[in-house]
């Protein structure tokens, strides 16, 4: 299963400048594992310590935010497009680690 993964500008320094990567796998997790095999530095940029998607990294499968599919276990098939896009985020206070899952209000109504 080969899927094209779009890499954002800010992460391309970890992928030898490549804007897209052909990765193998049947799920988002397997695709990321395959990219990490090719580019080990990539891992800490997109995955948290518990191997889940980093809170401020958005991953889209065919333009759908995978958090509203099956997260990192979202299945992919040949010809799908997966895009990795860092969140546009920040703010005056608190710490980035304090953004709680319970506070999320971006679920579709």
């Amino acid at each position, binding site marked *: 299963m080969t899927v094209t993964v779009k890499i954002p500008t800010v992460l391309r320094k970890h992928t030898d400048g490549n804007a897209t990567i052909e990765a193998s796998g049947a799920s988002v997790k397997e695709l990321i594992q395959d990219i990490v095999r090719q580019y080990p530095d990539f891992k800490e940029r997109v995955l948290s310590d518990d191997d889940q998607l980093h809170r401020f990294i958005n991953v889209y499968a065919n333009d759908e935010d995978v958090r509203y599919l099956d997260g990192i276990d979202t299945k992919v098939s040949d010809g799908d497009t997966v895009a990795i896009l860092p969140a546009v985020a920040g703010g005056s206070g608190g710490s980035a680690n304090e953004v709680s899952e319970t506070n999320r209000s*971006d679920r579709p109504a």
Partner: protein
Amino acid sequence: MKLERRFADAIIEQALAEQPNEACGLLAGNDGIATRIFKMTNAERSPVLYRMEPAEQLRVFNEMDEAGLELVAIYHSHTRSPAYPSSTDVQLAYYPEAAYLIVSLRDIEQPELRGFRIVDGKVEEVELEYE
């Protein structure tokens, strides 16, 4: 960087409308000159954090691609602190190619808008030239 006054006005207007929460959005254009503003939803709905709603972010990025526009600036408001990047802003600055504009509402009568580049954790102010 050059910035049309109407964009600065729109950013300040949105920041005032969305307080006490932080407001956020994008400026797109070419050659570092903004020609369009995209007001975005702060998915955090928080007075101290912003995170653009992910589906909306992708939709707008795709729209910019299709229109041949580049990301020129990312803006957000600080409702009670100065118009200067916080440690959270620096930590989450994933878009070094964009200017980061911050509007402070600390003095509600005189909102202050300033621009910065945040590259590899380093903050450098970019002067805003209105036209």
